[in-house]
């Protein structure tokens, strides 16, 4: 457990590095789209859908890029969610967030969010707008409860 927590802390510490390394491989056109705005999450979904199919998620060769994309999504949430904190569930194996880096607001409003929970459905359903919808849902609820001042 302690080792897993340390792995998670290291994973969080390297979020920016992973994104930067990934950006180097992208065209300027794409990099311009991935500007950490809320709308950029739609662009990320389009990119995922165009580049990958479901089986690719299980292919070790794609792990690095998938990890970088997940990092990008999490960082975007961190920038837009008030008091976002990175968390990980390491106890309950039946929890859908088990061993998946996630983010939650503080105080907690709505659920923790992990991009890893939604990669499958994004590719399977070829659905655009889910990441944005989840971000805005919690952000708006938070503002409703605590106002914008706490972010």
């Amino acid at each position: 457990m302690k080792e897993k927590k340390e792995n998670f802390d290291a994973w969080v510490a390297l979020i920016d590095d992973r994104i930067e390394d990934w950006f180097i491989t992208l065209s300027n056109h794409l990099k311009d789209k991935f500007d950490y705005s809320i709308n950029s999450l739609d662009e990320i979904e389009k990119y995922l859908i165009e580049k990958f199919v479901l089986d690719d998620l299980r292919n070790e060769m794609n792990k690095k890029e998938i990890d970088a994309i997940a990092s990008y999504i999490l960082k975007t949430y961190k920038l837009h969610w008030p008091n976002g904190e990175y968390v990980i569930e390491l106890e309950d194996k039946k929890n859908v967030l088990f061993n998946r880096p996630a983010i939650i607001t503080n105080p907690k409003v709505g659920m923790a969010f992990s991009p890893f929970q939604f990669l499958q459905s994004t590719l399977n359903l070829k659905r655009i707008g889910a990441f944005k919808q989840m971000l805005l849902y919690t952000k708006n609820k938070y503002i409703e409860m605590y106002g914008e001042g706490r972010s």
Partner: protein
Amino acid sequence: MQAFEKAVNESETFKQLINSNPSAVDVFFKYTKKKPGASVDEILELATIAKDLPKNQLDNFITDFSDAGFNSAVRKNSKLVDAWSSIFSGSASLRMNVNNLNKLSTFIRETGMDISKLTSSFKNAKDAQKWIDLKIPEAELDNIYSGFKNDPPFNQTPWTPEHKAQRWNNYKKGCTNGENTCLDFNDWSNGYDGKIDLVTSANKGVDDYFNSLGWDCPSDKCREQTLDVVVNGQTKKRRLDIYDEGNLRGKEFKEYYSGKVYQSEDIVAEVTADKELLASGRLLELEWVFKGCEPSGPLRKLLESSPNSITVVILP
């Protein structure tokens, strides 16, 4: 016969007991046969304790009375005889178990349950120990329910005290809303306990249903998945019976022998959590599947209400 006459002559109380309860004579002869050196006082005590037992239970009782532990327990608390009587047809180890007898005795005292009804219900129970374990007075069941009604997940293993507590409180809610016949606790409890054998495995119903779906979704990833939901500022664990991450769809499976699922507090908490999952985009589709039962009118209305309506599916 000489010993019998001696006992009658020696003990006026024994004489009176025989006059008022002829089965005391049976007790005398059976016990002296089993324990030739038994004193009149010992026989008198046994006959007094066993005086209300039906004749067909005497042999077993006298045999059990020879056991030191059982003997001591019933002599200390003669009310245990009623409890013993209700399970006399069970194995010797079961009916001489003092914990079992105390549990049943408390249940009989607190519910005023008719012994003959208990005896008859016990005879039909295939899992005798479980039948006894579920003999929990109403107040205690309510306490159990209070302990978890706001703390999901609510998927209780049939037939456990928590499951019985959940079902009883669900039934009571239906009664409050005028949606059932409002059986009293004793009748309801007998009905519940009588169904113990219907469920051989806690998850068989939902496992069978899940397999019948043919979803491309392995059981270890799709059955009994927990999602954290924050409702009114509190994190709740919502354990969905079936959750398909690849399609963001889920199913809640209800199998109530009583035929109806009412809008009790724990059920409302589940609906609230599920609607939050739909509202936040964590789920795109959610069905509540009722197998061999159906939602009450108010529950169905709540499930199907907008926004974030939940589909109701009723299976025979």
